[in-house]
């Protein structure tokens, strides 16, 4: 990125200015994290027991179950799910 900016003055200006697209892109890229903060904030506001340590411990146990499953699935999802239509061509 910086390398490109040095070679192209027009791009250098563009890289310095934070455009609307940059912000949008940042928000989209960090959407999981933003969603986490939002969900936590909403429930913390709605339920006083939500942010107690006892509840957080219980929740992290549930998260662990989801997370291990989801990690196994992350391996599976990138490759074969939707690329399969091309498979008969060569396999």
């Amino acid at each position, binding site marked *: 990125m910086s390398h490109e900016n040095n070679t192209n003055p027009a791009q250098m200006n563009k890289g310095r200015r934070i455009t609307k697209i940059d912000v949008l892109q940042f928000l989209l890229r960090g959407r999981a994290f933003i969603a986490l903060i939002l969900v936590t904030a909403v429930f913390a506001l709605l339920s006083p027991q939500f942010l107690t340590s006892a509840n957080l411990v219980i929740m992290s146990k549930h998260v662990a179950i989801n997370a*291990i499953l989801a990690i*196994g699935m*992350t391996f599976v999802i990138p490759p074969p799910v939707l690329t399969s239509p091309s498979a008969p061509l060569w396999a």
Partner: protein
Amino acid sequence: MIAMIAGLLINEGIILPQLGIIIYPHTWTILLISLAVGTLAGATSGYIITRFNVAPFIATLGMLYVARGIAGLLNNGYTFPNLVGRPEYGNTGFEILGAGNFLAVNYSIWLMIIITLAAHIITTRTPFGRHVYAIGGNERAAGLSGVRVARTKIIVYSISGFCAALVGLIIASQLVAAHPLTGDSFELNAIAAVVLGGTSLAGGRGNMGGTLIGAFVIGVLNDGLVMMGVSSFWQQVIKGAVIVLAVVIDQVQARMQERIALQKQQEIL
């Protein structure tokens, strides 16, 4: 694949006590057998998918129903209660996995951390990880560049099955019981976590850190909704909507990145 995971999960919870009750192997042996069965079921799915060109979704969905059916058959649909084992058979201690702590943190959380780290290292630092992404990006191109596609896919499904089996063990251990329907709707949670984490359903993109955050979102959402007393039917509605929304946002982002990349290309030219 989603499906298979839930199926295995149930399968695992069930197979385990069955072995414990009838053959009475040692607790560690039970754990190993369960994980092996899960891995093998994953490998079977992978083999069917690669060898016979079955659509992955169909193969894993079929595997889910097979596994779910077997889970029911093992004890005629009843729960295996009280999985504490008996000292004279040497199969006690199973409940420690779900209830025990190491450095004041539950074993399941340690396992989550270890698995995430391991998966991260595998995907980012090993040739195998590169191959997985390559197949996800363009299967044919990967095959032509010398990636052993079938083998990689089977390994990938085995990993998925292993993780599912591990979750099955953790749940059975936490409940100290195994019910054939334990894993119901777990596939929905897992896929929601993956999609929220930014893994592209079109393949070739995604990372383990994102998945972990996605799992946290889903976990917090689940427990929060339960605490608020939201009906379980509404919970399903909300989770389904979250999945679709996550995919929509993913598509929007992908299109935007494409456009930006195109713009940059034009500027350079």
